[in-house]
């Protein structure tokens, strides 16, 4: 994973609440054994009409959304399945951050492990961003802040370990593997107790 320290981009807004993982990537695209190249299926059934043409009404197809790396989404983004294909698809599509007032647990966990910033904001901050699509935001992971064009600033929660991994690009498996002595100790204690 590449380190994620700062991010500056204008926003795109998908105000729908409860955008589920089947919306993010429909299950019929999950027969792949790869993690690369899933961006073409991101929001597939929204992005394309039944005949395969682009749906011009879909927010992320509009010219204003081009090159946008920050998605502001309605409450409870990423609900539904545990498919990590959802953050893989969003990253490959070009997104680097998802902001909402609530993000489903498994999706958020999967996103952070892949360097997709999944950030939960307060209701009022969220309302402001929903009402101002296209504004440029500057996210500072170390400071846990989002800077607005008018100089205003939102701060957000991020657990210390996820933050460390994002900033250094270290992946969590390395840390877990370094716990081998403790894991062996735990297994030994249990065996003795049995």
């Amino acid at each position: 994973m590449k380190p994620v320290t700062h991010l500056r981009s204008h926003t795109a807004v998908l105000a729908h609440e409860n955008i589920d993982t089947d919306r993010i990537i429909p299950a019929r695209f999950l027969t792949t054994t790869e993690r690369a190249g899933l961006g073409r299926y991101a929001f597939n059934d929204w992005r394309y009409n039944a005949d395969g043409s682009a749906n011009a009404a879909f927010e992320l197809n509009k010219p204003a959304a081009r090159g946008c790396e920050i998605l502001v989404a309605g409450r409870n983004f990423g609900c539904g399945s545990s498919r990590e294909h959802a953050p893989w698809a969003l990253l490959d599509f070009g997104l680097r951050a998802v902001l909402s007032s609530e993000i489903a647990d498994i999706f958020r966990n999967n996103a952070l492990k892949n360097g997709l910033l999944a950030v939960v904001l307060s209701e009022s901050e969220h309302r402001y961003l929903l009402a101002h699509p296209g504004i440029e935001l500057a996210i500072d992971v170390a400071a846990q802040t989002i800077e607005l064009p008018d100089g205003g600033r939102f701060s957000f929660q991020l657990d210390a370990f996820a933050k460390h991994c994002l900033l250094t690009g270290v992946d969590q498996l390395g840390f877990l593997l370094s716990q081998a002595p403790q894991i062996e100790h735990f297994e030994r204690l249990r065996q003795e107790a049995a």
Partner: protein
Amino acid sequence: MAARTLFDKLWDAHLVKPQTAATPAVLYIDLHLIHEVTSPQAFAELRTRGLPVRCPERTLATLDHSTPTTPFDDLGQPVYASEEAAAQVGELEKNCAQFGIRLNGWSSEHRGIVHVIGPELGATQPGMTIVCGDSHTSTHGAFGALAFGIGTTEVGHVLATQCLLQQKPKTLAIHVDGALPAGSSAKDLVLHIIGQIGVNGGTGHVIEYRGSAIQALSMEQRMTVCNMAIEAGARAGLIAPDETTYAYLRNKPYAPQGEDWDKAVAYWNTLASDADARYDREVRVDASRVAPTVTYGTHPGMVVALHAPVPTPASLQERRALDYMKVEAGKSLIGMSVDVVFIGSCTNSRLSDLRDAADVLRGRTLDARVRMLVVPGSLAIKREAESEGLDQVFRAAGAEWREPGCSMCIAMNGDLAKPGQLVVSTSNRNFEGRQGPGARTVLASPAVAAASAVAGCIADPQSLLQEQAA
């Protein structure tokens, strides 16, 4: 020691290393279930790093999501919907062979949906931690096991270390007292609960279902209730183990035997929440008020009693959902035209579910417009159902009796509805396009689904069941 909840006890018993300000807890995993869809990239990671699977004996694999439910071809081979699906299954077969993992593959009598076979084999036991790259892993919480869905990166973590890094979730007690009315099922109960607490009502929490109505449920019913904990956004659902649990597990192939059994039960009896244990949140549900319940919108929190009018949309969002579903506010769903009926999924594909559906269908035929798929959760269930003649009831009615698998719940194996079709489904998700692009889903119990197949429109099974009894 301070009073602890069932969740606290499970958490504490698996802590390799507690959470600190800088690092999450390291939690030991007793049972890792894997399937073909969410595991290939994790095995690839192990190969890249040259790592073995730490505990192959704690890992159990099955084929379920992308596998066909149609009969084998003349050469005895499965007929896949695509080459990609076949390749994905081949990949799991190869990975299991290379890493020494038990696979309940095509030739196994134990093959079936991952959340059906774990309990059926007795691999799922109280007191365990159980994970799988599948959000409906919450099902196993019915046994008093801490069971939750994980992503593929975490599948790799568990394969390599048998551990996961976890932030401790909060606890939510759902007290369900009173008796479920005759004619209301566990599915109706859990849909009612999700309607009450909301599709995000459980986010950040582990739910413990408690109370007399929960204790009165069979294991299969408890699994239905825990299965859908994730549909309220919860990390996991839990029910304390009791005599019902032990009666179900005793003599299952992987369950402890003899003296080991007695020892295990003695431990399992210590797991229930202490009388004065505290939860972060508590909710009360009156089971006596649970009517047969269905969804009318595009997420599992949009529920309504079968005979009650669909509520007026409270937001643009809900308006859109009603438009998508072609549902009218102020009217009940009774009489809405149905194209497809699906009986199956890790929510409702067990023997008691098939019996519920068969009781409604016995001696009747499907409405001419309806296509009905009945997909047992496992090969074992299929065989049991056939020994009771349930397959004959379904076939005589005009339904398709299929091989086990996830099938039309996730619609990635070729079993899917056409755009615009209305599916009455015993599965767990009614998201837009979940059962095929443009398909509309109404979640319901097996009895309501079967009655709707007979009527050709959404229908109440009660009158049909009364006729059967007469």
